[in-house]
């Protein structure tokens, strides 16, 4: 028996290797509506990416004046008028949720337009391909160049291309650094060699990955590395618009000579223009497939050909499965944009937007966090009074030293004392000092007399008041007894 198995193993190994080499894709240049849209998107997105770190925003002295800055060493993130503390990382969570839901929503409506138009991988690959085309020529010339033997011309073109790619990659990685360091400070430092190992390390990392992913890996990133194509089909249904070859119109495909009759055949003349322009190297006529990023360049290519053979445009276009079936049977088109799926995505999106807007609008420059002591939960004093301890953290988000007023609300007959300030007045209002732009920690005791029966947990609020602005921060906590 074992011999049989071994034989079959050898057999199957011979038939198919476990590994396949990449088949290089040579996308052909194309011009059309969708290509125009893609260039416009590219210019806008890259513009934002490269220019944003240079925008300034005056926040007064002792604060960075960069409009968009994530200051890791000081644990602060600046977005225009907003200054986010690590404690407010939920804003980041909200942004990520909005990003995910936005992608779900758009995908359920229009398919993979994120992949095709706005994904950084697509945008930079487009840019790198443009450079490649400038230097090495279009599809046919590039294929010829790669097949040709060594020559000075080939050496010159290849090195020019890679030099240009590396320059773009360094600019890209450099721009990324500027979101984490002050652009006006770090750029001169990078240039004169004083920026430090971290900056150069990350610069090398981001430049290297840009060069590798946009120059070499390209469609391999989408097919093998990215998880999004693997589950985006979960957002698709029969009403989702996707780049589609209208096979009911195109088949039977076949070569067509000028003057031949169109009777009894499809509109597809099998010119393979759609395949030649595809950056993923696939044939859209095989139907919906994982590799298709929905960039729509095949639509431009096919439309050009249709114009040339005097047939209506749109043999390939954005279309839904439902319309495919309707058209194939000669019924009118129907578009369903409002569907349970899109309503749910849009509703959750709106709710999160609302929560974040509420959070931003009610955001104050002072915050108080209260931690009830666990060891011990409460202490019985000599006269039978019950005392609870609290660790109070005061977040002073302003640029000035502040003296806050701490009091409590919802607890009668209690007396308050602050550890280290035992001598201060006993009017149940403590004065807590907090240095500018920092957190101050205090330990506070609350004591209630023995006559007062303390429930197992009595809820009340600590109230912190900014005496200059009147801003108030509350934090609910409990007083516990036996």
């Amino acid at each position, binding site marked *: 028996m074992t011999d049989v198995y071994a034989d079959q193993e050898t*057999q199957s190994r011979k038939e198919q290797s476990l590994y396949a080499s990449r088949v290089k894709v040579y996308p052909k240049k194309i011009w059309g509506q969708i290509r125009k849209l893609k260039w416009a998107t590219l210019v806008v997105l890259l513009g934002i990416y490269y220019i944003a770190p240079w925008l300034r925003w005056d926040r007064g002295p002792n604060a960075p004046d960069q409009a968009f800055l994530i200051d890791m060493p000081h644990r602060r993130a600046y977005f225009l008028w907003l200054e986010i503390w690590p404690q407010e990382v939920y804003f980041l969570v909200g942004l990520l949720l909005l990003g995910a839901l936005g992608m779900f929503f758009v995908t359920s409506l229009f398919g993979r337009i994120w992949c095709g138009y706005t994904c950084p991988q697509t945008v930079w690959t487009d840019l790198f391909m443009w450079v490649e085309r400038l230097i090495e020529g279009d599809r046919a010339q590039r294929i010829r160049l790669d097949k040709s033997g060594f020559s000075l011309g080939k050496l010159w073109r290849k090195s020019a291309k890679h030099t240009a790619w590396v320059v773009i990659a360094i600019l890209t990685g450099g721009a990324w650094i500027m979101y984490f360091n002050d652009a006006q400070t770090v750029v001169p430092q990078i240039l004169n060699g004083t920026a430090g190992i971290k900056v150069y390390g990350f610069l090398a990392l981001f430049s290297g990955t840009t060069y590798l992913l946009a120059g070499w890996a390209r469609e391999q990133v989408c097919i093998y590395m990215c998880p999004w194509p693997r589950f985006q089909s979960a957002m698709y249904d029969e009403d989702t618009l996707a780049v589609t070859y209208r096979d009911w119109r195109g088949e039977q495909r076949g070569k067509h000579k000028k003057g031949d009759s169109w009777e009894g055949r499809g509109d597809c003349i099998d010119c393979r223009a759609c395949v030649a322009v595809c950056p993923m190297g696939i044939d859209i006529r095989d139907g919906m497939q994982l590799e298709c990023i929905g960039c729509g360049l095949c639509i431009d290519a096919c439309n050009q050909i249709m114009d040339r053979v005097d047939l209506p445009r749109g043999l390939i276009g954005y279309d839904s499965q439902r319309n495919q079936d309707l058209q194939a049977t000669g019924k009118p088109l129907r578009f369903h944009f409002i569907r349970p799926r899109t309503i749910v995505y849009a509703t959750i999106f709106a709710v999160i937007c609302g929560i974040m807007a509420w959070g931003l609008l009610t955001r104050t420059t002072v915050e108080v966090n209260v931690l009830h002591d666990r060891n011990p939960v409460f*202490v019985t*004093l000599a006269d039978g009074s019950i005392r609870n301890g609290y660790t109070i953290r005061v977040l002073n988000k302003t640029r000035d030293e502040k003296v806050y007023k701490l009091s409590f609300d919802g607890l009668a007959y209690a007396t308050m004392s602050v*550890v280290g300030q035992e001598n201060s007045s006993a009017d149940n209002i403590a004065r807590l000092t907090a240095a500018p732009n920092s957190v101050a920690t205090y330990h506070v005791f609350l004591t209630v007399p023995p006559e007062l029966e303390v429930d197992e947990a009595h809820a009340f609020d600590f109230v912190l008041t900014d005496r200059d602005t009147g801003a108030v921060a509350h934090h609910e906590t409990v007083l516990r007894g036996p």
Partner: protein
Amino acid sequence: MATPKTDELTGVATTGHEWDGLTELNNPLPRWWLYTLYACIAFGFVYAFFVPPFPGVEGIIPTTRAVLAEQVAAAREDQAVFLNGIESSDVAQIRGDGELFAFATAGGAATFAENCAPCHGAGGAGAPGYPSLADDVWLWGGTLEDIHTTIGHGIRNDDPDSRFSEMLAFGRDGILNGGQIGDVANYVLSLTGKAEDPEAAARGQEIFAENCVACHGENAGGEQSLGGPALNDAIWLYGSTLADIRAQVTNPRHGVMPAWNGRLDEATIKMLTVYVSTLGGYKE
């Protein structure tokens, strides 16, 4: 039986195996993926050479062990300023100085968790037989000086300056009989309004005056200089029921605390003193 087949729908070869009607496509992996795996393995060896993962060997790039040692040394250096301050100040000065107070509280908390919490509980919460350090009652005094002495010399140990007190075994040694012990226990409870038998309590008052006042003080208010606990408050080290009190009078238990002088350095004991004073019982 495993025979290589081709999947009709996709035209891709299958692995040949079939699991209850399911077959698996045998799509080839991209070759660069394989090379990436090899590159990662190679990188592992290079990395191990430059940053050795074995203790005792240092490579060209500092390991996290070396970085840690450096950071610990740097932290020690930073702490030295504060430690010097603590060594050259007395405990009251430390408590009055914002920076030293914060440093001493943090250092004291760490030392307390390691050395004191096993008996006194985290946060000095105490336990039956182990005094709470968070309430406002002190057996040996709650001023900074008192706390400092107690930590340094301990209680009922071999240190010549150790705090020492011992309650007579009134029951075991036959000083009082069972009825008298019940009476005096009732009297003690009556001081906080919890007597079970008012007549017994009345009888017990005389016994208390004769036997107990010397250490527990007039009106049972306690006598700190002798370590005699107050009996007229809500704090009970060995329990507050009649049975608990009878048991303690009959056959008293005594806790022992080691002297920390010599075990901990003086700066650490000062920090501990400051920390204990923040737990809630601090007396001016």
